[in-house]
């Protein structure tokens, strides 16, 4: 069974190693300060207590007033997993976060996908281009304020 790190233990251990890095935590999740994210990730990967060598999933959610980037990590040797979250882009302005591609190659396409569909910029990603949509596509479709083609027709007709 893969054991999940409890939020408080993880937060405590991270806070011990890197000061002022944890913003908040609850039963499962730990919210990390975006400025310290890369540092924390490096520690999570390399510290002998964690050894999170597998980046399962990297995704993001649009919470209207901010964006959240979610990292799911697994340690193969400990058979344990944890969830790290990061709040970025308050008031929807210029959301950006450090890329972890230098630590986990697996972040490559997932970060590009998030940039393409959600519009969060990953600083340090060597090839941050659109992946699913074509260059010049207007907007980022997974954002909640994105107006789809159908919706745009409905609103334009309603306006007439």
């Amino acid at each position, binding site marked *: 069974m893969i*054991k*999940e*790190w*409890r*939020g*408080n*233990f993880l*937060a*405590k251990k991270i*806070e011990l190693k890197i000061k002022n890095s*944890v*913003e*908040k*935590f*609850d*039963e499962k999740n730990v919210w990390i300060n975006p400025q310290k994210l890369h540092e924390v990730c490096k520690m999570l990967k390399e510290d002998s*207590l964690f*050894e999170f060598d597998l980046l399962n999933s990297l995704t993001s959610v649009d919470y209207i007033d901010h964006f959240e980037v979610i990292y799911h990590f697994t340690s*193969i*040797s*400990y*058979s*344990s997993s944890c969830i790290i979250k990061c709040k970025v882009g308050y008031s929807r302005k210029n959301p950006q976060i450090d890329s972890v591609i230098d630590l986990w190659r697996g972040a490559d396409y997932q970060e590009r996908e998030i940039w393409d569909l959600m519009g969060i910029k990953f600083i340090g990603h060597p090839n941050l281009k659109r992946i699913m949509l074509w260059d010049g596509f207007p907007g980022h479709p997974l954002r909640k304020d994105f107006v789809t083609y159908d919706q745009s027709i409905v609103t334009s007709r309603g306006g007439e």
Partner: protein
Amino acid sequence: MDMGYSFGIIPSGFEWLAFILSAISLIGLVINGVLGGVIVLIWGERRLFGRFQNRTGPNRWGPYGILTPVADAIKTMFKEDILPKDADRLLYNLAPIMVVVPVLIVFSVIPFGLGSFVVDLNVGILFVLAITSISSLSVLTAGWSSGNRIAILSALRSVALLISYEIPMGLAVIGVIMLSGSLSLGSIVESQQIPYILVQPLGFFVFFLAAMAEMARAPFDLTEAESELAAGHLNDYSSMKFALFFLGEFMAELATAAIVTTLFLGGWKGPDFIPSEFWFGVKLVFVLFLIVWFRMTLPRLRVDQVLQFAWKGLFELTMINIITTAIFMYIWPEPGVKELLILAAINWPVAIISIWGVSKILGTKQYENLESLKNENAYPYSFKTLPSEFYHEKVEEGKIK
């Protein structure tokens, strides 16, 4: 003055006209026969593919679907003829002709039966080897003139195949030539008291494989490798030009089978109560079946492996064959049936041992002690556990201060 057959029909002084008329009718017979053969071959190959792949194959047009190739031909002719913008117009149009014509010429020297041949050249086999190489040139022309990068890759591969396989193919024939003492295909057939496949197993093996490679059939179908190059040099061809390529490809198959039959299976020879053309046809169908069987079952070799196979495998085998045959010919310069059977008894063990040896040398080595490697060098070099309170304890939400 010898009036001969033209006496009374053709005025004197115009005997050459009789010659031309008979030549044209013969040529018409052979070409139409070959084209008809190609139609039957395409149908038969597709039916066989169906059986190999556990399905029915074409069965809609005509009895057992025998008219399917005709329908295909009509469909292909009515397609739009496309000329790519970057194409070299002259060569692009020339290439399909260069595929068909040499293969048709090859049929002129093949003896289809006792006395039924267009011409019996005294350098027949050399002529065949020389003419068939032109097909590869046409692939080069087609690939180059299309102005398509994938087609050019196909053209380069075709040249590599030609250069490599022409040598074992030529050397494989030498054994046959030594035994029969002639280059003429007609006298090669006549000199086969027993089929040369029994006497020259290595020669047959090498010649058959080299011919498969020469006409780019699976497992050597590098030039139009469907899963790599889409259709290789045929990418930009459509309509009649594509149909000509298709025709040339199947005629090459027919020609290869005919040459193999002539050289190694005794040609038209067989018991006398049935016409010799029938025996030729039976052997032809057998060789065609072998070719289709190969094509259906084997995956493709990579380009370096194909060339390696020619230079490191087939070349050595032909050398062994030539040496054994030469020693034999030195002892019995004019072999009868008994001597040929002795040679067969020597050559078969030699063939089996040398093929086995070459396959040992060229074959891929198995993995070494896989079982012992397991779990020792595998990635997480050690498994660790943390105290369980790290994972299971109730917490309250809040911030760390």
